[in-house]
């Protein structure tokens, strides 16, 4: 399956990536290869195989609903590039 450069640009946009022309070309080739491999898998007869919904074989790992002390705010904010009035500060968001 061919992946066009438009598709690469679209996906890169969703992931907030800026790609050079060379990188776009490389990505479209690599993504195409991956999908081609998927097509190969599709040619296999999987009628008797249960779908794998999850990679993990374990299930039901739960925690009890009990409250533990939260962190000090200073610690939570320690690595924030910008903060104000106890909050993380980010570039202005408009809806």
């Amino acid at each position, binding site marked *: 399956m061919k992946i066009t450069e438009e598709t690469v640009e*679209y996906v890169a*946009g*969703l992931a*907030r990536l800026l790609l050079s022309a060379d990188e776009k070309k490389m990505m479209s080739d690599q993504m195409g290869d991956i999908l081609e491999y998927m097509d190969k898998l599709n040619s296999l007869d999987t009628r008797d195989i249960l779908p794998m*919904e*999850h*990679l*993990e074989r*374990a*299930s*039901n*790992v*739960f*925690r*009890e*609903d*009990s*409250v*533990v002390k*939260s*962190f000090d*705010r200073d610690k*939570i*904010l320690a690595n924030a590039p*910008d903060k*104000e*009035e*106890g*909050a*993380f*500060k*980010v*570039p*202005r*968001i*408009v*809806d």
Partner: protein
Amino acid sequence: MDYEVVIGLEIHVELATKSKIFCGCTTEFGGEVNTHCCPVCTSMPGTLPVMNEKAVEFAVKAGLAMNCEIAEFSKMDRKNYFYPDLPKAYQISQFDLPICKGGYVDIDINGKMKRIGITRIHIEEDAGKLIHDPHGKGSLVDYNRCGVPLIEIVSEPDMSSPEEARKYFEKVRSILQYTGVSDCRMQEGSIRADVNLSLRPAGSTKLGTRTEMKNLNSFRSVFNAAESEIKRQSGILRQGGRVGQETRRWDDDAGKSFPMRNKEEAHDYRYFPEPDLVPIILTKERIDAYRESLPELPWKRFARYTEEMGIPGYDAGIITASVKTSDFFEEAVKYGADAKTAANWIMGDLMRLMNDAGTEDIPFGGKMLAELADLIGQGRISNNIAKTVLSEMFATGGTPSFIVKEKGLEVVSDRDELARIVDKVISHNKKSVEDYMGGKEKAMGFLMGQVMRETGGKANPTMVKAMLADGLKKAMEP
């Protein structure tokens, strides 16, 4: 051309767990900015989420109460988007294998039952809150709500008027409160609805283009937003235009909606299975145990109230609409209040007090209403005085007998004291006494009223009546 309205609701509900969905931070509302946070809910690198078992239990109970099929196998997925309310740049949610599917809720529309389908209920995490910086330079983010467990209840597009949308929203909220799944505090945003609405030519079966209005947190705003959107869309269609598929923000104060700037190019969330959380497998036994633990739901109580207790359907509907009111009623009856009397007090004075105070909470238990009714039954206070006592109970939370004693509201049955007052009233109201002697029976009522006034409404009416009759008879004798 006539148009038909098609409405579907997505309802987000914060679950009543004590701790967040993937970490032990408290879910308590309020609190200083970013003080209910830890490395997990602020998505620090290297942290791992662990599912809160109670969140799963609540989601299943909500599903069972709404007649859903519970998935024996379900899993969490990542929903990817960039928005600073989610520090991971994805929300952990459920995509193709939600925990509940295919249920329904019945609503009452002018005495007729209408069934609204539930497509699915899934578990997800709530996002943080953006506070717009007053200085306008940036946005501030508070992650206290980030990671609070939510369920999203997605309905079928089965509603065909704003009224049906409101009724459905009310019913879902009531069910969630009954099951204890959520406290559903609207002003705290713990339940909110997105309204999906489209129009189509009457009789057509093809759906028109829909718009979505987000985060409506009151019954009234769901109704108003739907009504306004119907006007807006029909205006466009009548002029031969086309409705654009978009997300709109409803402004309650302005009474209209505005298009929202697109958060993300299309809704391309690139879901994939969450590798940090293992699947949830629910055995039949476990699901049955959750089912067994469900409390009696509103429609069952309604049936019991109307069929066994003789409460009128209208009253039973209002009392069962809120689990708090319904529990209060049950307690009053349990402690000996007559069901109809208790219902009358709730429907009348108590509802008025609650409305005036703008609250759904009753500051005392049903036992206190039973005690009040008992005081009336024993003839220790009059019905009118009881109203005063109830207001006082509502204001102070004091017990009825304490208030009656403290305020000296008990019925005056002291024969000597009453005799003194009756004599006084007879001697001060010559005109009425003459009227009575002249055959005007009504004058008796006036004299009764005077005695009541003298005693602040506390005189024992049976005694006063007899004593007045006696006194007047004496006055008639030469």
